[in-house]
C-alpha cells in the first residue's frame, strides 16, 4: 500500500488538463486547415466577393448627402471582415454537426473533459481561424485603396473579428448540438448574416430606411461594426470602442451559455 502511494504520479491540476484539452482541440482545427486548405476557400472567397461586389455596386452611395465618408471601400471593409468571421464561426458549428454525425463528438463526451472545455476548444479555434479571411479581405482592401486604420484601429478591428467569430461559433455550436445534423447549416449562416448586415453595414444609420434604422439601433452588432470601422474612417476613441466590447461580451455570455446548455443536454 505504502509502495503504491510512493510510486503514484503527482496529480496534474485540473486547469492544466483543461488547458491542454483546449489546445489539442485548437490544434485539431489548425491541422484541418493545413491538411484540407480547400475547405477554407469558401470562407475566404465569400466575404471577399461581398467586399469587392458591394464596393463595385454601391460605391457611389458616398455621394449621398450626409454619408460623410470619402472612401466606400474603407467604410465597407470592416463589415466584410466581420462577415468572414461570422461565416468562419458558423462553419465551426457545421463542423461540429459533422463530427457529431461521424461519432467524434460521442468520443469527446465520454472523455473526462468538462463540457465547457470542449465548447471552449471549438470556439477558440473559430476565433483563430477567423484571422485568415479577415487578413485576406484586408489585404485585397489595401490593394484597392482602403485607408490605413492605424495600429490601434487595426488592433480593435481584429479584436472585434476574433470576438465575432467566437459569438458565431457559439451560435453554430448551439444549433449543431440542438439539431445534431449538418442540415442546420443554412440556419447557422443565415443567422450570422442577418446579425452582421442588419446594422449600418451599407450606409450610416441616418441614411438607412426607417425600419432598418430601428433594427440597427437595437442590434448589438451595430456597436461591433462601429468599433471595428472607426480606425478606417477616422480616429480610434474609447467612446466608440467600449460599446463594441460590451456588445461582444454580452453576446458571448448569452450564446455561450445557450451552447453550453445544449452541450450538457447532449447524451452519448
Amino acid at each position, binding site marked *: 500500500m505504502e509502495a503504491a502511494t510512493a510510486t503514484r504520479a503527482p496529480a496534474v491540476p485540473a486547469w492544466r488538463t483543461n488547458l491542454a484539452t483546449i489546445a489539442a482541440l485548437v490544434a485539431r482545427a489548425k491541422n484541418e486547415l493545413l491538411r484540407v486548405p480547400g475547405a477554407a476557400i469558401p470562407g475566404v472567397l465569400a466575404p471577399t*466577393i461581398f467586399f469587392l*461586389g*458591394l464596393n463595385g455596386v454601391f460605391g457611389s452611395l458616398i455621394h449621398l448627402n450626409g454619408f460623410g465618408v470619402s472612401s466606400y471601400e474603407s467604410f465597407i471593409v470592416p463589415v466584410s471582415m466581420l462577415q468572414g468571421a461570422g461565416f468562419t464561426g458558423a462553419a465551426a458549428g457545421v463542423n461540429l454537426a459533422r463530427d457529431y454525425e461521424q461519432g467524434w463528438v460521442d468520443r469527446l463526451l465520454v472523455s473526462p473533459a468538462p463540457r465547457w472545455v470542449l465548447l471552449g476548444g471549438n470556439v477558440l479555434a473559430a476565433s483563430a481561424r477567423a484571422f485568415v479571411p479577415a487578413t485576406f479581405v484586408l489585404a485585397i482592401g489595401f490593394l484597392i485603396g482602403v485607408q490605413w486604420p492605424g495600429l490601434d484601429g487595426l488592433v480593435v478591428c481584429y479584436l472585434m473579428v476574433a470576438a465575432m467569430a467566437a459569438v458565431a461559433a457559439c451560435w453554430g455550436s448551439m444549433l449543431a448540438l440542438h439539431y445534431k445534423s449538418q442540415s442546420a447549416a443554412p440556419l447557422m449562416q443565415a443567422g450570422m448574416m442577418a446579425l452582421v448586415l442588419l446594422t449600418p453595414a451599407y450606409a450610416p444609420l441616418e441614411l438607412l430606411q426607417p425600419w432598418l434604422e430601428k433594427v440597427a439601433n437595437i442590434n448589438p452588432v451595430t456597436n461591433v461594426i462601429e468599433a471595428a470601422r472607426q480606425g478606417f474612417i477616422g480616429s480610434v476613441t474609447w467612446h466608440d470602442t467600449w460599446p463594441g466590447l460590451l456588445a461582444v461580451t454580452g453576446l458571448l455570455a448569452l450564446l455561450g451559455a445557450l451552447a453550453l446548455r445544449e452541450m450538457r443536454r447532449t447524451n452519448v
Partner: protein
Amino acid sequence: MSELASGARVVRALGARSIRQTFRRPQLISPIVVFPTLLLAIQTGGAGAGIELPGFPPVQSFLQFMLAGSMMQSMMLAGNSGGIAFAVDIEMGFTDRLFASPIPRFAIVLGRLAGTAALGLFASLWFLAIGLIFGAHIEGGVPGALLAIALITASAIAVGGIGAAIALRTGSASVVQGLFPLVLVVLFLSSAFFPQELMIEPAKTIAEYNPFSFIVEGVREPIISGVEARPTLEAVAAIAGILLLGLGLSARALRHRLRTG
C-alpha cells in the same frame, strides 16, 4: 404509348421528384428563398437612399427596383441547387439506375430542368408577392408580371442546363456547390442590384456586357416602367444564348458520362 408521350411522363415524374427533393432539404431550399429574401430586405433597407442619386432611373421605391435582382439571384441559386441535387443523384447511383432503365436519356436531363424551371417560377412568384405585400407597384400590370415570371422561368431552365452539365461532367456535388461564389460574382458584375451607370469601375464596364444584365433589365422593365419591346427582346436573346450553351454542354457531358461510365 408513343415515345414522346412516354418521355413526357418521365420528365414530369423526374421534375416532380426534383421539386420534392428541394423542398425537403433545407440546404437546397434556403439558398433559393432564405438568402435572397434576407439580402433583399438588407439591401433595400441599407442602400434604399440610393434612389436619390442623380442618374438613378425613376422608380417608385428601391424595393421595386430590387425585385428583379432578387428574382435573378433566387433563380440562379435554384439552378445551382438543381445541379447539386443532380450530382448527389449521380454520386448515390440513382442516375445509373435511370441510365439502365428503358427511358430516353434526354428525359433524365429535361426532368431535372423541369424541376429547376418550377423552382424559377416559384422564385418569381415569391418575390412578386413580397413586393406587392410591401407596397411595390408592378407598372406593367398583369401582363408585365406575367412577362417577368416567364423570363425568370425560362432563365432557370437556361442556368439549370449549365448546372446539369457540370454535375454530369464531374459527378461531384462538392464541385457544383463550389460554384456558389461564382453565382454571386456574376450577379455583382451585372446590373442586378444597382443601375449600371452608377456602378464603380471595373464592375460598371463588365456589367454592360454581362448577359445577365440584359436578362435582369428585361425582367425589371415591366416592373418599374412597363412592357417594352427592346429590353424584352434583349433578355430573350440572352436567355436563348445561355440555354443553347447549357443544353449543348449537357448533351456533351451526358455523352461523355455514358461513354466512360
